[in-house]
């Protein structure tokens, strides 16, 4: 099939390892995503707060700066600080998911492109993992990675004793962000797989959180229960984060951390089931 010969020839060269092929989808999607100036600008904005926090941590340990205010430290770097950091970054992550998520699977479905992916030595699971990796990377870059960098900055400024005493915070940052990333990614992929129009998929994604929250309040008020929170994804994530950072007051006010974990796992399983049903080369019409 040489350009000059214009004839067909088969390929007998080396092949890439099968396990690495899901990264191809991720790589091409990244190229496509960052063509959008708006997304690039928003993504940069997502780093303002972590950079501000890093500066604040530095100033918190800068004696000459603190001497101006005649204090030893401006704020305490503890669970509250990192929980607040995660809360802010979760909001940015949520908006980022709403922008990026709907465009992941729906264009492939709208263009009937799935048979082209799946007729190759490339499975449905690899396709989903490849698409999910896009969100996992983006959300990781603005949640647990800067969170752990802040933890390391504080550890370097406060000393090893602080780091050892607060090691649980690093764990909380990582696990809290990881579960949030997983839920956001699976949910946006599932919605993107079921709603072909990008705008409608974005709206549905926002609807799941806001409508779910509203419905939860209605259920709680009408049935005089707290179980309505089980369908409020935002609340479930907050409850899990609070439990990871040892804030039992928040957990007790709503539902138990165990219930929140179970509800989140159920939501993830449901999203996987939705993806399993929809991500196919061809739908089988049973009649």
């Amino acid at each position, binding site marked *: *099939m*040489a*350009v000059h010969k*214009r*004839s*067909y*020839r*088969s*390929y*007998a*060269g*080396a*092949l*890439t390892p*099968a396990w690495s*092929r899901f990264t*191809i*989808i991720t790589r*091409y999607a990244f190229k*496509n995503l960052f063509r959008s100036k708006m997304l690039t600008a928003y993504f940069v904005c997502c780093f303002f707060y972590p950079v501000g926090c890093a500066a604040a941590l530095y100033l918190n340990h800068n004696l000459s700066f603190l001497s101006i205010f005649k204090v030893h430290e401006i704020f305490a770097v503890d669970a509250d600080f990192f929980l607040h950091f995660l809360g802010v970054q979760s909001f940015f992550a949520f908006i980022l998911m709403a922008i990026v998520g709907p465009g992941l699977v729906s*264009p*492939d479905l709208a*263009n*009937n*492109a799935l*048979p*082209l*992916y*799946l*007729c*190759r*030595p*490339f*499975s449905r699971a690899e396709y989903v993992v490849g698409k999910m990796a896009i969100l996992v990377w983006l959300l990781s870059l603005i949640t647990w990675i800067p969170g752990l960098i802040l933890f390391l900055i504080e550890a370097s400024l406060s000393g090893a004793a602080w780091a050892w005493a607060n090691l649980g915070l690093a764990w909380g940052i990582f696990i809290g962000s990881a579960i949030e990333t997983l839920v956001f990614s699976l949910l946006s992929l599932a919605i993107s797989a079921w709603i072909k129009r990008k705008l409608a998929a974005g709206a549905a994604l926002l609807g799941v959180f806001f409508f779910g929250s509203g419905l939860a309040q209605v259920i709680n008020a009408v049935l005089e229960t707290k179980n309505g929170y089980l369908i409020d994804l935002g609340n479930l994530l907050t409850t899990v984060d609070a439990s990871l950072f040892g804030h039992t007051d928040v957990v007790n006010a709503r539902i138990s951390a165990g219930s929140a974990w179970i509800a989140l796992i159920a939501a993830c399983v449901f999203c996987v089931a939705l993806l399993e049903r929809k991500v*196919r*080369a*061809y739908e*089988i*019409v*049973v*009649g």
Partner: protein
Amino acid sequence: MPAVIELDGLNVRFGRRDILKELRCSMSGRTIGLLGPNGAGKSTLINTLLGFYRPFAGTARVFGHDIRTETRQIRALTGYMPESDCFIASMTAVNFVRMMAELSGLPSEAALERAHEALFYVGLGEARYRRLGTYSLGMKQLAKLAQAIAHGPKLVVLDEPTNGLDPPARQRMIRLIREMRDTNEVSILISSHLLRDVEETCEEVLILKEGRQVHYANLEEERRANRRFLELETVGGDNGFADAVTELGCECALTSAHRMKMVLPESFAIRELYRLAGERNIQIRRLSYRRDSLEDIFLKAMESANGRP
């Protein structure tokens, strides 16, 4: 010649509906045609071979790989051009074909090189940096063909490759298929309901109807076999000529006073006819082998399927 595709009692069922029923044959030609009316199960057979649908009973093998257990190996050897519009509208043709080649396992640089080659080969060289969404229907068909061959598969599966093409574009597609066939580097499976496409490109044909295999034919052998059928037009003489021919072991039927059709025995030499004509002072004005067209084969297969209990 080793079998390209072997169907071994293949049965595919959706819900309670049998879509493919007891398909059983071995195909080894360079180009294999899948023929049948709409809804015959051609695309279902292709999708089953590619592992998109699971067989309900029986199995099939592609280059010896079982479709039940070795789907990945089969897909690695196969290039697929689907029937429906399949593309990623926002990508340029070269990026699209490159990505598909990479997904088939080619390293990035090799995939880019072969994407350019494939697009030149199918005739989209000048348009390869255009977005697929801006392509005409014919160009999209060619882009689909390019992605199917970019990774140099051993088997190319073309599902209705000439769908929606105007006559020049159709001719171009047929020419490309023939060229690929003649390289002997690739086997081609073509599904079509257009007899002419299959006749012009295929060496073997499997005819399906309502999910059943109604005929499997090696077109070359069928054509050779048809050389025993003759149509003859004569001037002069009388019916004695037909009797004399019958005495030589031919089956003969007069269609009019001077026209006849005959079936020759295996060892019969045509010069015997000229000798008989010479003896009876008869002129042979026309002598032609009656060649069964694919249409004849197809119609016969459909008739026999209709007569099936």
